């Protein structure tokens, strides 16, 4: 699905670094309120002392703008809050190093025109015990992302080969399992400009059908028309985009809060498009994507657990672990011995969907507090 977020910085994104202090709480985190309007972000120009910052994003009544991004000067998204509509606020935390950033609320009148200046001196890189643990977490997560993208690349090559060969059955069998690798690391792709919509835009997300490409464009033809005819060029483009993603993830530079933000965004993806059956509207392979989101979110969180224990947030870590387990247990009930590995969305009753929504909501709540705990740790 289009965009979730774990804002990943490129290696050149000098802004990113681990926090220096060993604080175990978010008490030093500054809160910045940003309102979305038709014009874009309000305020448009922000100045804040460097260090841990939590952005609280609310919708001021616009139906045109629904997300806010913070980018570095190279245009890489460091943090973002999506699907912010009236009554549904969003937030994300980052540890800002001194420097200039771009504040952007896409599709607003003043796109890419906002600025954020973080003042003060650059913090020393991580020195405490928790900092070392967090550094290990981000390095391990980078390995995980690269591994998943490599699997995605291999799978996509097989998928597009099936499309070229006109093998509808094989293409349909590969569609869900290949996508799960993308769903696991989707927030990473979102930090690279248009790559995510090019690869994974849903039909809900596009303004004009002619601009639509990626997995779901192919899905529509495969399932609605039961043919590969017309999908070949989309397949070739998809493979090129995935290869570009593979090249770009090598350069990523992460901070712990980004892992946590990404974990939350992945679960939001589950709430907003998997449980609703809109992610894979034509193939109904949503539960396979659900598993991908859940695995990616859980992996990012799992890597932060040692630092949470170290910084006195063991209770939070245990709560989140337990809630991840509850969601996983429920999802495992829908595993099937099929190429997809999961039941189709149509098997879910209204009661099943409500149970999933309740469990994911219960997980989201404590998970959303993790970023602030690790952004200044």
């Amino acid at each position: 699905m289009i965009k979730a977020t774990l804002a990943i910085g490129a290696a050149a994104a000098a802004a990113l670094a681990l926090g220096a202090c060993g604080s175990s709480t978010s008490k030093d985190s500054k809160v910045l309120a940003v309102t979305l309007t038709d014009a874009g972000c309000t305020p448009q120009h922000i100045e804040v002392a460097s260090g841990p910052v939590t952005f609280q994003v609310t919708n001021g009544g616009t139906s045109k703008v629904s997300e806010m991004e913070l980018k570095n000067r190279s245009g890489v998204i460091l943090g973002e809050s999506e699907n912010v509509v009236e009554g549904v606020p969003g937030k994300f935390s980052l540890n800002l190093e001194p420097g200039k950033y771009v504040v952007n609320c896409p599709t607003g009148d003043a796109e890419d025109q906002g600025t954020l200046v973080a003042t003060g001196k650059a913090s020393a890189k991580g020195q405490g015990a928790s900092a070392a643990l967090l550094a290990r977490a981000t390095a391990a997560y980078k390995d995980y992302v690269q591994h998943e993208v490599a699997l995605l690349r291999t799978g996509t090559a097989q998928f597009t080969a099936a499309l070229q060969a006109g093998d509808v059955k094989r293409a349909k069998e590969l569609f869900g399992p290949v996508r799960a690798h993308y769903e696991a690391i989707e927030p990473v792709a979102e930090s690279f400009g248009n790559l995510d919509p090019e690869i994974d835009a849903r039909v809900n997300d596009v303004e004009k059908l002619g601009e639509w490409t990626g997995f779901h464009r192919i899905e529509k033809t495969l399932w609605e028309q039961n043919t590969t005819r017309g999908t070949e060029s989309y397949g070739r483009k998809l493979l090129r985009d995935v290869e570009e993603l593979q090249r770009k993830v090598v350069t990523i530079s992460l901070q712990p809060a980004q892992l946590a933000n990404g974990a939350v965004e992945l679960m939001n993806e589950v709430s907003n498009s998997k449980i609703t059956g809109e992610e894979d509207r034509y193939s109904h392979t949503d539960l396979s994507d659900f598993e991908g989101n859940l695995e990616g979110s859980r992996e990012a969180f799992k890597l932060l657990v040692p630092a949470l224990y170290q910084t006195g947030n063991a209770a939070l870590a245990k709560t989140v672990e337990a809630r991840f387990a509850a969601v996983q247990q429920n999802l495992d009930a829908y595993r099937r011995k099929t190429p997809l590995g999961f039941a189709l969305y149509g098997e879910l009753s209204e009661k099943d969907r409500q149970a999933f929504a309740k469990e994911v909501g219960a997980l989201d709540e404590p998970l959303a507090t993790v970023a602030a705990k690790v952004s200044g740790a």
Partner: protein
Amino acid sequence: MPRRVLALLGLAALLLSQALAPVAYAGMPAPAGGAPRAPERERAGARALLSELPSEYRTIDRTHEAEGAARVRAMALALASQLGLWQAAQPQPQLAAAAKGAHELARDLEATADRLQPWPLPLSVRADAERIAAQLRSAGLGAALSAKPYDSIEALLGDARGATAPATASAYAAEAYALFATGPGKRLQGTNAALAASVQDAFWQREGRRADRGLLVALASGAGTGAVAHAATTANERVSSAATVLGDRTIGRSTVVADAAVIVFREGLEAVLILAAITASFVGERRRLRRPVLFGALLGLGATAATYALAQALVDALGDGGLRLQAITGLIAIAVLLVVTNWFFHRVYWSEWLGRFHRRRRAIERIDRFGFISGQLVAFTLLGLTSVYREGFETVLFLQNLQVSAGSSATALGIAIGLAGTLAVGFVTFKLERKLPYKKMLIATGVLIGLVLGVMVGTTVHSLQGLGWVPSTQTGFTLPLWCGQWLGLYATWEGIGAQLVALLVVYGSYAVARALQTRRYKRVPREVPTLARG
């Protein structure tokens, strides 16, 4: 009650309203083979619904948010209801196709009552809306969207209050909302997001006390006539506040011109009279002393112009503060008016005030020369300057509010009229050396300024209510919009109360001052001092 049941009830109400449609449109003659007719406000409302609905739907589809979904469903039902009413009253093939399309759209959007299932595609919803809009245009029921549709909104809210069928009332209310959302609402988000949200709440708020519920929520829940009227009045008031903030419809232009002219003329008159009082004894050989005073007066005018430019720069530097800036400058303007009126009424016949100038003049006349410069000359120049600048400074402070609220052109016209009046009085006084009925003129302008104060207090309280700085308790009766534009009179107890208090303070203090003065004159009979002896 489950959402599905509510949706079915909505559709049932819709069908009922269409059965009653010929009754509702009884006063409108059916066309003889021509295009069906419908009031402009309804056509504009339907057009706005067709624009706003797909736009809002695209946003809420991202999160499947329940309140937004309810709003979109209500808009779709409103559209279907409106088109059904037209079609039932004046059948026509293109209109029938549009009405059918609107029904289908409303039915498709019923899926949004369950957030955990796939919803219709935003692309399809937009395509449906565009097709219906095209069909309406073909049927001769098209309309353009306006950036300032306030008259239509007010009329539709009135229609919603008066409609007997809830579905018809909801259609009018939803059209009023859509007109706002597609026009002023978009601009308002950038200037005052809180007010934009409060306007939306006036239509859609579900939470909180029953009295706080939005108009469409009140209608959907079968609220009584009083509650619906209250909600409609609240919506109208908030839309009106938005118009004020956006500068679309503040105080009427004529009122601004009149206010600016009155204040400039009044302060100019005071300055002329003071100058006349100072120079009255400069006759014969002492006539030469008039020059420095009048020269000082000209410098005072220049200083006033400089102060005006400075104030403008300051206000500009504060940016487009919208309602906030209007409220703050409004409070300053009220303070100025209270000073002016208080000063006037408490020294109703100028005795003390002019006495002070006479004392200063006599003191200056005793000054000898020093160095090459005549001390007298400098002092009289300063006297002329200060007597004009004092009045000018007050005027500048006052005018900032008009400038912020109504823009430059109306204010400039008022200033020009006021200055022309002042120059005329000055010409008659100094050049022709004639006396005018100054006392009557001062009293007349004083009364006018009292009225200006009343209007200013009303509009400022209205701005403060828009900002949420002052509570807003609806009176229960409504006032036409011209009352707000001309008199700053809005249907809230706080606004009306503040205006009454202001008028009471000013005219009451005048009455008290008169009574005290009369008693003093009775005790110590003496001749009333003349205003000017020049």
